[in-house]
């Protein structure tokens, strides 16, 4: 019988704890496939965030470090400076990366820290039960915006790729989604590029992956994918926001 699909080696056999319909699983697989294809598992160290993906140190077969909330880019910086030839990636959610860890994210980016950041944006704090995230959309109902996110009091969402694309240390800032086969394939290409950039010492690479949270959005998995397409993508347009070697604009 022909084998048409196997679990990537860079994933362990531990079953994911993610909710049904959550797209973290897809993104994990894409990252693992890229690690396999580049043949770098043995020199890869991943940094787990605080948030739904907090336990992904059990899922990836490479060495893993669990960082304090928001500090993954700082921890990754330490790992990278320790062993510059290792491949270091962080895997962070929107609260981790764009709220508590904004400083660490922006400064790792502007330093051109040669790391890869996988940024999972699902507009909500999943792990703690569905509170407003820095990326929650205007009007979005969450546990802590029960009347919808009021931009007059809660402010506006953060567009991370657009913001980081202004920084000279950034090599790649690209937003992708995992709502369709086509988008999943594009997402994988972007993730692979973000890893390859690191191997080529091009600088800080971030791939923002628009993701779903059916449980906390109160939608079925299929409805959640529709919501991602209809609500998120218009606010967070997919595309490449920066793609050049760090410092290229200064040359």
């Amino acid at each position, binding site marked *: 019988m022909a084998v048409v699909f196997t679990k990537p080696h860079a994933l*362990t056999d531990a079953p994911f704890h993610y909710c049904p319909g959550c797209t973290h699983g897809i993104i994990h697989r894409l990252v693992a496939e890229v690690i396999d294809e580049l043949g770098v*598992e*043995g*020199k*890869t*160290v991943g*940094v*787990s965030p605080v948030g739904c993906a*907090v*336990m992904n*140190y*059990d899922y*990836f*077969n*490479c*060495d*893993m*470090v*669990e*960082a*304090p909330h928001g*500090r993954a880019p*700082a*921890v*990754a*910086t*330490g*790992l*990278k*400076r*320790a*062993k510059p030839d*290792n491949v270091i990636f962080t895997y962070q959610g929107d609260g981790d990366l764009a709220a508590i860890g904004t*400083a*660490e994210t*922006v*400064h790792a980016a502007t330093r051109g820290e040669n790391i890869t950041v996988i940024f999972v944006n699902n507009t909500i704090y999943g792990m703690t039960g569905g509170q407003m995230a820095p990326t929650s959309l205007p009007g979005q109902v969450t546990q802590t915006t029960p009347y919808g996110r009021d931009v007059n009091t809660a402010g506006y969402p953060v567009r991370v790729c657009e913001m980081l694309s202004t920084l000279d240390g950034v090599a790649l800032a690209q937003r992708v989604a995992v709502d369709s086969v086509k988008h999943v394939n594009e997402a994988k290409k972007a993730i692979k590029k973000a890893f390859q950039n690191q191997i080529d010492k091009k600088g800080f690479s971030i791939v923002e992956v628009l993701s779903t949270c059916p449980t906390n959005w109160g939608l079925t998995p299929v409805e959640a994918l529709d919501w991602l397409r209809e609500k998120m993508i218009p606010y967070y347009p997919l595309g490449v926001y920066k793609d050049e070697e760090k410092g290229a604009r200064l040359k």
Partner: protein
Amino acid sequence: MAERFLMKGNEALAEAAIQAGCRHFFGYPITPQTELAAYMSKKMPKVGGTYLQAESELAAANMVLGCASAGCRAMTSSSSPGISLKTEAISYMAGSDVPALIINVQRGGPGLGGIQPSQADYWQATKATGHGDFQILVFAPATVQEMVNLVGKAFDLGDKYRMPAMILADGMLGQMMEPVEIPDGSNTELPEKPWATNGHQNKREHNIINSLYLTPQALEKLVRERFERYEIIKKNEQMAEEYLTDDADIIVVAYGASARVSHSAVDSARQQGIKAGLIRPITLWPFPTDTLAKAAEHAKAFLSVEMSMGQMVDDVKLAINCSRPVEFYGRTGGMIPTPDEILQQIIELGGEK
């Protein structure tokens, strides 16, 4: 013997760390530790090391966490308010059994406090360098030479017991110059760290550096194991210096800068015929309980002298099980006690005979 030369405490700490094999420093500017970071920024590039000025103390300490997780000797330094920010990563390092060196050149607090020397972070260093059940090794040098010696020791013991270590200095020690000899660290052998997350090279199972245990039983077991290790440390690693304690009636207990001042006060008391002595804790955790308990067998009273409102004094009472009166004298906010002030306290205690 190497030539003795004058060096600022802050710079001596930095050079000693380099000689101890540290090649990664992550910092953030703050007075009065600034010279340490400045020295590192000058020296690290020359020895192929990393000096990185982080965006905050939080980030700096977490860079240390990452770097130390990869098995490197990594360090950060700060002064009191900055250490408060670093406690996040220190707790994570303790909870992940990751060794690293943190230097606190203390200044007055709370809040922004002041910038003059202080010892008001004793509680923070020895009881709560972050949330959770844990200890870190805490060393309290009293001379610039001892700063040098203890940096190597802190790295070594941190590696041995897989835990963070702190040098608890203060603005006086950091800013002053004294003659030092710096050991040549070219032969320093760094220990193997099979637990490090430095890439498994397809030769072993993946390593995980982690402090999250959602099963309470598992977390309790781990914390208990860690505390068993702490008991071994308490048994083996206490350090204290005794000065004229053999026949002393009054024993001053002081560390760091206040121990220097107390030393002068004890000399003056002896000149006046008062049998005074000094116990100077060199490790604050583990606290040198054994030395104090032994001294309590013959001493009549103890006087804890600190540049704080009285923090170590509690540990002195515990160490001797309150078997003798324990008095306290301190200045705070950046004030340094004078030998005469301490002498006065000794005389008052001596008068109770």
